[in-house]
């Protein structure tokens, strides 16, 4: 139970789904809530902000229970998906809005507005109207306005989804920078996992109203607790456990001999494309002595150039295997290899703690 930061235990039921989420964000952290559409991430934000009523559970911010407080008394600022800049006010008036509420005098307001604008790299924009601003500029004004209210918690609801790719990259860095400069606890909602992985201190993966996994980006990416999280957080290949006997080479010769033991329920394996080695890829020789799965006679179906690597989709015995390669394969048929240490196992979508395939220590 953190004394500082946000601790939520949210319960609410709606027409389409029931929300039951618990998570904690440490003070000063930038946490990302990520999940597919309809998983309840925006709803979560609205519950935290108080825009939707809670049905049970608790909401603690910096030690205080804010669950009963009306929206305008929670000191939680929110940036909405459409930015919600007031069209009848110019940039300065928009940002000064919360300052006026806090009864700052005119000179102080002017000064703070100027400071905030330079924080978001929009110096001199005071007199412009929101209709004149580009998407990225609007987003930054919305951010500046939210910060003006001196919040204890900042909520961002898919702030970058309306922008183009390049701008998104640039702005997410800006958001990270601003966060670091102000040190405000931030919760950021997105459906883009690349965004989440790049800037978040903590990632909360949600699905159908529930938190599937919570933790650092690296943990979630490399050790996804469920098949859902695994496939959501990045690309990969899912194969039924039954292919193991056909493809396993050099099973572990350590203390634990390999036993092919399919478990009750849907037993599957999963691995990421960057861990698949393509046979004639000279740069990544397969250490053939290590236990690995070998897929012979995989046919290359598509080959996309991604800039720094090629993304291949290969067909092997009716399954599609995704892999990355530094070079374009010269032949149509290739052999693929995946080290067993890189393979995760799931039963009915849930991860199995032990990895029978990998020798201990790897």
């Amino acid at each position, binding site marked *: 139970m953190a004394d500082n930061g946000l601790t939520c235990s949210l319960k609410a039921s709606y027409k389409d789904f029931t929300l039951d989420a618990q998570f904690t964000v440490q003070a000063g952290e930038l946490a990302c809530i990520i999940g597919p559409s309809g998983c309840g991430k925006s*709803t979560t934000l*609205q519950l935290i*902000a*108080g*825009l*939707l*009523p809670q049905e049970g559970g608790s909401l603690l911010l910096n030690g205080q229970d804010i669950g009963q*407080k*009306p*929206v*305008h*008394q*929670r*000191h*939680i*600022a*929110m940036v*909405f*998906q*459409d930015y*919600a800049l*007031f*069209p*009848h006010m110019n940039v300065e008036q928009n940002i000064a*809005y*919360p300052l006026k*509420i*806090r009864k700052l005098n005119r000179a102080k307001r002017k000064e703070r507005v100027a400071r905030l604008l330079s924080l978001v790299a929009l110096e001199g924009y005071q007199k412009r109207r929101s*209709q004149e601003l580009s998407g990225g500029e609007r987003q930054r004004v919305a951010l500046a*306005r*939210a910060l*003006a*209210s001196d919040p204890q918690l900042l*909520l961002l609801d898919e702030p970058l989804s309306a922008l183009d790719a390049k701008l998104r990259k640039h702005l997410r860095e800006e958001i990270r920078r601003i966060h670091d400069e102000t040190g405000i606890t931030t919760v950021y909602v997105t459906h883009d996992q690349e965004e989440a992985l790049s800037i978040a201190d903590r990632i909360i993966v949600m699905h159908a109203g529930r938190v599937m996994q919570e933790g650092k980006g690296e943990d979630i990416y490399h050790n996804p607790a469920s098949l859902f999280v695994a496939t959501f957080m990045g690309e990969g290949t899912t194969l039924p456990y039954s292919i193991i006997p056909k493809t396993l080479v050099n099973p572990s010769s350590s203390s634990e001999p390999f036993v092919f033991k399919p478990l009750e329920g849907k037993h599957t394996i999963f691995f990421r494309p960057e861990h698949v080695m393509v046979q004639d890829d000279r740069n990544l020789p397969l250490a053939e002595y290590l236990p690995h799965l070998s897929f012979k006679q995989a046919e290359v179906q598509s080959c996309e150039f991604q800039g720094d690597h090629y993304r291949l989709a290969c067909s092997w015995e009716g399954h599609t295997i995704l892999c990355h390669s530094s070079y374009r394969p010269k032949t149509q048929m290739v052999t693929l290899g995946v080290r067993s240490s890189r393979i995760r196992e799931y039963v009915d979508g849930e991860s199995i703690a032990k990895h029978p395939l990998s020798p201990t220590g790897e």
Partner: protein
Amino acid sequence: MRKANNLQYKRFYRIVPLPSVVVLLLLFFVPLFFTLSSAFITEEGLTFLRVLEVFTDSYTVKIMLFTLLQATLSTLFSLLVALPGAYLIATYSFRGKRLILALSAIPFVIPSILVVLGFVIFFGNNGFLNGLLMSLFNLSEPPLKILYSFKAIILAHTFYNFPIIMSLVSSYWEHLDANCEAASQTLGANKVQTFLKVTLPRLLPAIISAASLVFLFCFNSFAIILVLGGGPQYTTMEVEIYRQARMLGNSGAAAALSLFSILTTTLLLIWYNASQRRLARSETYQNSKRIIEKRPATLLGKLLALLYTLSSFLFILGPIVSVVIRSFMASSSRSAAESFSLKWYRQLLSLERATGHMGSALGALTNSTLIALLVALCTIPVALSMCIAIRRRESKQSFLELLGMLPMTVSSVIIGLGYYLISSRLRGGLPLGYVLVVLAHLVIAIPFVLRTILPEYRKIPLSYMHSSLTLGAGRIRTFLQIELPLLKGAIFTGAIFAFALSMGEFNATLTLANSSITTLPIVMYRLIGSYNFQGACALGTILIGVCTIVFIVSEFAKGGTYGR
């Protein structure tokens, strides 16, 4: 986006609609209740028989069918005439456009007898149009015998209502996203197909809204039908109600008929409400206006635009202008020739000794203006408070919205009857009379102001309000600083409409005001009632003038809204 179903603001939302509910209750529901209850109460006590009788009597059913028929046909024709105009206005810019729009609501607000007589002066067998044609083509008989027939009813309804459809639909059309049409054409559809399959369905909310307004107007139409129809074969519910209430003094039977009438119009209203919410969800503050600085490109286009402008000017203005011209005529001496004269205006302004009623005209003008100003001022907060309460519970059929619109569905005869039954229990002097008149006008104006402000209010994204709340502003402050400024245009338009409606209101005013309060329409009616038709025209001209100025101001003020 989820509605703001916020528990903490419950108190705010409970209090806010109170004043409007109180006003509506006192001045609409209570009188209505009195009227309708006499349908169920006879000397023997409570009974449903009378009502049952009315509903099953074949004559009543026949009248109801006729009423529905003429209202439907009138509405359809009005739509047919109005839609091309709406298209022209939404797509092109041309001279006289703003003026047409400004004038389009005038027939709606002036007393119907002026409308009827204006129509007669213009289209009648002895009217301007026939006179002109006869002298042009040297005819002995008037060529256009349009009046005093069923088609005259439809025609009169059409020409008086198409401007308002045109105005409502075109302003909605202007804001439609033009990309859909572009997409349709790239997919291979020609212009006609695009219009029918892509544009028309999206225009539906505006069309239904305008059409329902017109339908109700035609449904409750009274003088137009009797005078211009030419005879009792065209009897409507209103006439029957009037007959029972006024001629036979059977308020019970009148009430039973009223019940039937109200049920029909309320059903229509419920359907209208449901369709509005369903359809209007799609259009929010999206893209700004499409580019309308086009001038018609082809010669055909130019010709059509010209034709349309001329004919609308003719039909909207013709009868109105006739009334105006009439007011400047007076017959002097024994010769029958009438010549230009400012006689009536001199009397009106008390510059000359007035004959009969003209003496009170100036006082009536002042009264009317004062009352109208008060009404305009009071309607706004009431309508706003209702809008707030309505928006809060968007997903459920808004009872409050229905309530607010109801006064529009009930005819003035029925309301008059109700006021009448109540006022017999009240006694009071001058101040009370004024207050009651203002309140009655308020009730009549509310539906119109509501339908002006509510759609605009619904367009404000909830995120604006939420944003303001998260920035620390309480609910009231959010309303005052965020929602209110964005509604400025709609509020102004609504106030203007309320002002104009109040200026032209006759029936309720006559019933409630005792003889010491006179308003412009009342004096006008009295003038007509005492043989002084020209004097009435003079007053009518003033009324038309005031409405015109006020609508023109509103039309030009609309230009300054916030693009989004």
